[in-house]
């Protein structure tokens, strides 16, 4: 190989390296620098994996009752003890994670999709359309969420699907406002005019050009919002209006432990579900904070 070829090849090499430095990589590098966020992400991954592999990891059937062995303390047989019906708390926590995480994830996903499209349309078209659409958002926000949830769930019968639907239908407003604000500023940027001049349709401009640029704060809000969703589901289940037993969820496990004597004599029963909720929501918040810093375009390095 002649010298010239070598030079050309090394140039191509550096170019290739540059090429791979995508937005995602840059974001990842910044995210990793935040220690709490990384811990949060690892914790969440562990919990998610545990939920997915619950059937293999569980040592007992989560609904199997051992009435003779109720409120047993943690032991080698029952890692985290048993509840007031003699069910294995460790196994129920694993299955409960499935419900809690799914409710959080699915309801946030729906809320974000609805909110993004709604906010994008309002912000992009502006004027009277925006005004009417955003006043409707104000109306939705003015609903007292928890009371409406309780009412709807009482009428419709509590089920996982109903809870997800109600949570999603009432919590898209935050995303809608966020995306609308982004669009108001993005549509005035020159690159919007630039794609319009080449003949792009409104649909193309909104979804292929502006939305990807409005995504960063939405991802952050969604991560933080998921914690709130999990908390709301737990709250509802605690009140007996959420996921119905015998299906385990972290919230309805807490409900079983409401009894004062149970709390005093069998601390492990309310403690572990409560701890799981705390850890999960905290991790989500750490990850959300980490993402916010990592996705902030102002912090360039």
């Amino acid at each position, binding site marked *: 190989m002649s010298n010239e070829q070598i030079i050309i090849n090394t140039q191509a090499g550096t170019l290739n390296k540059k090429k791979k430095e995508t937005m995602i990589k840059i974001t990842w590098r910044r995210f990793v620098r935040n220690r709490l966020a990384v811990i949060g992400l690892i914790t969440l991954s562990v919990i998610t994996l545990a939920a997915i592999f619950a059937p293999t990891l569980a040592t007992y059937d989560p609904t199997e009752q051992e009435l003779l062995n109720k409120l047993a303390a943690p032991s080698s047989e029952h890692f985290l003890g048993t509840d007031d019906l003699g069910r294995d708390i460790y196994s129920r926590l694993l299955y409960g994670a499935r419900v809690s995480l799914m409710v959080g994830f699915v309801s946030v996903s729906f809320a974000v999709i609805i909110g993004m499209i709604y906010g994008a349309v309002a912000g992009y078209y502006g004027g009277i359309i925006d005004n009417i659409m955003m006043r409707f958002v104000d109306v939705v926000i003015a609903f007292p969420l928890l009371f409406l949830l309780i009412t709807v769930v009482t009428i419709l019968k509590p089920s996982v699907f109903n809870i997800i639907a109600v949570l999603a239908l009432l919590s898209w407003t935050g995303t809608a406002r966020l995306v609308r604000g982004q669009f108001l500023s993005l549509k005035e940027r*020159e*690159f919007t005019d630039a794609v319009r*001049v080449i003949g792009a*349709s409104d649909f*193309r401009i909104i979804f292929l050009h502006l939305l990807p*640029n409005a995504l960063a704060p939405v991802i952050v809000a969604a991560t933080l919002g998921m914690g709130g969703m999990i908390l709301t589901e737990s709250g509802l289940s605690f009140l007996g209006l959420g996921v119905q037993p015998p299906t385990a969820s972290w919230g309805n496990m807490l409900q079983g432990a409401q009894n004062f004597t149970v709390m005093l004599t069998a601390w492990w029963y309310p403690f572990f579900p409560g701890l799981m909720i705390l850890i999960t929501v905290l991790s989500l918040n750490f990850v959300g904070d980490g993402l916010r810093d990592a996705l902030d375009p102002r912090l360039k390095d």
Partner: protein
Amino acid sequence: MAEKLLEVNQVKKYFTIQSGFLQRTIGFNKAVDNVSFYINRGETFGIVGESGCGKSTTGKMITRLYEPTEGQILFEGNDISHLSQKELRKFRREIQMVFQDPYASLNPRKRIGILLEEPYKIHNIYSEKERRGKVEELLEIVGLNADHYDRYPHEFSGGQRQRIGIARALTLRPKLIVADEPVSALDVSIQSQILNLMKKLQKDFHLTYIFISHDLSVVKHISDRIGVMYLGKMVEIAEKKDLYQDPLHPYTQSLLSAVPVPNPKVKKERIILQGDVPSAVNPPKGCVFHTRCPKVMAQCKQEVPTLQEYKPKHYVACHLYS
């Protein structure tokens, strides 16, 4: 031989000022008020004026980013001022635009190649395989490298970004390019590179330019004919030489007197205007320039002067010459 490519006839753009829940109109911003001019095929028409005079709005009406409130814009004899969405799409291939801020005009999340292939995708030109080759060819034409196809905008300097902006304007092989302050965001040393590139492309691709700028020396460098705007009105249009040697309108005279001369021994008489530019929401009656004009007459406060041919190919809107 001078064939008119574009004709702008008494075009107005009033932006409505709205407020309240029902968005009631409470006033108009007369950004462009009764402007007429024409552009010959193959020439460069410069539009100068200070910020807020409506030069960018005029450019955006020609590219149909804005719909004119009134008046006609004829492109090759066809009225384009009120096209439907579908007709507009087809027409977009004829007129393209180069933007002012190269940092804001490229979508930061798209690779250069994707950005430049998009016009082909939208208009369904070339097969998917051919597109990459065409884009790489274009990148080299504007002085970049075919390797730049996979890079993101943030990896480029301002001058390189403006080259990408120019490449994008060329993708559809337009007949007319509206360049809205294409070099004002760049360093002076880069400015001349970009201007020379534009001149070269004009020859190679038989382009016609509308060159909008507030920088008189840049406009002088590139234009064949120049129009001077003030507060939404075209006050003077002339060939370049004629305008710089014999400016007729008092506003043009004062503008030209403000251009710095590199020779310190030359003493120039500066005509300094008093006061500020009036608001376009509530422009002065009569001639819009009368509040600041050093040669103001009684007539100016009452009658609006029209653009008239005072000398061959030299138009001016001023009562001094009627």
